[in-house]
């Protein structure tokens, strides 16, 4: 593992987007930033700016309105990046599945790396999801390097 890989795994800046959640998942996600969980221990910062972010955390179902915004945010993030879907709604649409305005889970719009199930998932599960996403990001980067070589 090179120096860059270590730096990447120790400094994941996150972007949080609520695509249409009931705020249950958002509260659990924000709880990660509080003194009890303090994700800054792992170098995680809620940066709030797609141009600086490494990991996109999406909560809630994706509807026809939020899909456009979600796509835009994802496109603005520079590679390497990862997407984590948080909560039942972000996984499949949850209780809103097959509603007339619902496209489904986040994977209807974006390639999702990690699915964190729950309604709402615990903060520990969300942190683990980010860590798993970093692993996926690393694998993809290595595959890209092998392809380039």
């Amino acid at each position, binding site marked *: 593992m090179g*120096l*860059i890989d*270590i*730096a*990447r795994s*120790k*400094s994941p800046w996150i972007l949080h987007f609520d695509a249409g959640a009931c705020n249950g998942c958002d509260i659990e996600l924000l709880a990660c930033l509080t*003194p009890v969980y*303090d994700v*800054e*221990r*792992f*170098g995680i*910062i*809620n*940066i*709030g*700016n797609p*141009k*600086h972010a*490494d990991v996109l955390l999406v909560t809630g179902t994706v509807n026809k309105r939020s899909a456009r915004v979600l796509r835009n945010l994802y496109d603005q993030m*520079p*590679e*390497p990046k990862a997407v984590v879907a948080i909560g039942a709604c972000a996984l499949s649409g949850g209780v809103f599945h097959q509603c007339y305005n619902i496209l489904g889970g986040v994977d209807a719009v974006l390639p999702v790396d990690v699915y964190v199930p729950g309604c709402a998932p615990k903060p520990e599960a969300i942190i683990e999801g980010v860590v798993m996403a970093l692993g996926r990001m690393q694998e993809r980067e290595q595959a890209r390097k092998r392809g380039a070589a």
Partner: protein
Amino acid sequence: MMAEYLAALAAVLVAPFIGGVLMGVDRIVSARLQSRQGPPLFQPFYDILKLFAKRRMAANTFQMISVSVYLASMVLSLALLVMGQDLLVLLFILALGNIMLILGGFSVKSPYSQLGSQREVLVLLAYEPLLVCMVVGAYIMTGSFSAASVFGLDRPLALSMPAFVVTQALVMAMKLHKSPFDVSASHHAHQELVRGLYTEFSGPQMAVIELAHLYELVLLLGFIALFWHTNLAVGIALALACHGAVIILDNISARMTTRWMFGFTWSFGLALAAANLAALYATGPLPR
């Protein structure tokens, strides 16, 4: 002359490491003040390395030029200070770098970036008179604008210019974007402009900015250490004490408006500076 160049080279090479560790200490102390554990000490280095390794995604070519000039101006200012060169030239180079960064922010049509840049202009306008007054004070003391003539004094500046230690600490808080002066941007995106001035800089450009910040921190500490050049250990302790005060100020105060910042620095800051300058005029320059 050779020794000065070598000292400048050493300072330029070592500064980012000192700056990074101090920035790490800053983040840990801030976290502890908020009952959190905080990131590892070397977190700023991880952040910069990661940002350098991200794929380039520039909105325009000017962005990279602006951040490069910003970094170059910080490095050059630090080298000039260590070499004992003209303090006024140093201030102009410092301002040039800041203005290039602001132009970089203005070069993109994002409202966050635009508003952040406008506010950064006001921040620049707020602290620049304090810096100039400090240099004027040093001129009254030594009869020269060069830092070398300050090094030549046999009495520390802080004894004759105590008010300027306070104004330098204020300048430090403003330049490091600490509360209550973090109107244009802040390290954590906990404000209405998200990352403000830095919003549109991504990946390697942001890494260059962060690297320049490390130089900037060392430079600002160097300015304060200049006030006790006779014993560098005391100077460094004074600088670190000011840094600590700025961190505590950051954590106990809320962000204020640009108008307040302007009123505060131009009334309180300039009044302090003017009082000290008047006292210096009254007593005259030190016997050399």
